[in-house]
């Protein structure tokens, strides 16, 4: 048990140092590519290569200089707001759609081809069209997230509905459940774990999409912040941005996983 714990700490550290090694190698080859050390200074503050004492991006993430110059915390918050906007919309539309498609063969036949065609479309392909429709940064970002993250929710909800065993439906028939009672008492409890799997995939996609969307729409947001860093030749900030996006995405996934486990009856009460 104890050696297991040591392995869990030591092995990732080994990989971490290997990454730093490769990174330093690239920094030595590519001109002006930030080294691990300069990136650390850019992130947490200190004296940079030019001998200037600077404040790190992460040492003061909450500053607000003006409307267009805010700390990295506010950038991430703006991105999260858009992600949740689009994600919640996708839930509101996607879950009922999925329930319908799962319960009705006709609905499945009607919608399935379009779901299969629209599902693989990249968010970047939607973006110009949606920007043209809304002419607004926030609405464009939210609707892009909506339209790309709704598919896993629909597909997984329908899958969950279809996995309801015939036996449970027989119980419902003998008790003469109304269609609404069937949905609430039988179908949803079975489908909920599937719905949460869909939500988890969907939230992952939404977080992927937001960075790309914000690069094109501009304004505020972690995606725009990274793009802005590129335009201002702040290459260290690009790497910090990538790491931040990764960490936030990881945290979102963990939270979603915990919520999913909570609602999954198969993971409850097992001795």
């Amino acid at each position: 048990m104890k050696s297991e714990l040591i392995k869990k700490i030591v092995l990732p550290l080994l990989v971490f140092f290997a990454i730093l090694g490769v990174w330093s190698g690239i920094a030595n080859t590519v001109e002006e590519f930030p080294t691990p050390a300069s990136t650390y200074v850019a992130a947490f503050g200190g004296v940079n290569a030019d001998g200037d004492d600077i404040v790190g991006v992460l040492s003061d993430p909450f500053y607000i200089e003006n409307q267009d110059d805010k700390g990295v915390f506010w950038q991430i918050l703006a991105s999260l707001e858009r992600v949740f906007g689009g994600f919640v919309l996708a839930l509101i539309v996607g879950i009922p759609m999925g329930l319908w498609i799962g319960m009705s063969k006709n609905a499945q036949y009607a919608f399935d081809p379009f779901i299969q065609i629209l599902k693989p479309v990249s968010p970047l392909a939607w973006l110009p069209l949606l920007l043209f429709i809304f002419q607004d940064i926030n609405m464009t970002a939210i609707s892009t997230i909506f339209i790309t993250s709704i598919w896993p929710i629909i597909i997984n909800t329908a899958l969950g509905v279809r996995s309801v065993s015939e036996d449970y439906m027989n119980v419902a028939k003998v008790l003469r459940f109304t269609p609404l009672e069937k949905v609430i008492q039988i179908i949803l409890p079975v489908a909920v774990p599937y719905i949460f799997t869909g939500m988890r995939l969907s939230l992952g996609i939404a977080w992927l999409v937001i960075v790309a969307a914000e690069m094109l729409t501009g304004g505020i947001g972690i995606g725009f912040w990274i793009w802005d860093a590129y335009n201002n030749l702040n290459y260290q900030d690009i790497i910090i941005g990538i790491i931040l996006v990764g960490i936030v995405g990881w945290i979102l996934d963990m939270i979603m996983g915990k919520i999913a486990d909570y609602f999954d009856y198969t993971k409850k009460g097992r001795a």
Partner: protein
Amino acid sequence: MSKFLSLENIEKRFPIPGKEDYIAVTDVDLEIKKNEIISIIGHSGCGKSTLLNMISGLDGQTTGKIILNDKEIKGPGPDRAVVFQNHSLLPWLTVYGNIEMAVKKVMPELDPKELRERVEKFVSMVNLDPAKDKLPGEISGGMKQRVGIARALSIQPDVLLMDEPFGALDSLTRANLQEHLMRIQQNVQNTVIIITHDVDEAVLLSDRVIMMTNGPEATIGEILEVNLKRPRNRVELQHDEEYIRCRESILSFLYEKFAKEDE
């Protein structure tokens, strides 16, 4: 007295594309009295489960009528509770919750106190008080089947239909559940129809044993009256002449008159 439950000229066909219909069950006429315990026995594929599904209404007959309390059966309903072979408990509800769900739906007029008392009464009836807050995944197969029986009885059905209720259990657990069922039956007096392939189970539990011929076109071959007093004791019965007679009669039907080759 009018008839309680009667099956009149029942036939069940399954259409097979491009071929003639498969006739699973045909020409079944049967009258069942109130509070009678009936077993339907036969080899696999004799349509005994099909017959039960038609009585429960989960499956419709092709021709013929099934009449319960002077009313023709159309579709499933809580007057014919079913104990399924695989228990069919909802795995996200506790033992208590599974029974509560059924009682709540069938007896919406109960106030919360009456509801709780009724559910607890049926939990106690199958001796599951200590397991009442457990989920189906946490209790044994025999206990699950007891919950299934309690759930079926809790909605006060006119007929209790049991589709090989103990088929998936080991023989000791099965014997234990048969005892449970007989004891409960002494108290609540219900009409029970049990599908089984176990000769001893059929004789021990039933007032009459319906023996089905082999399918296709299966029908009732013989009906055996079991003239044994209740309560019945399985150990004492081993030397009872009537018990031995019934047993032999079923065995001879199943293995001499309608022996079935392994396919």
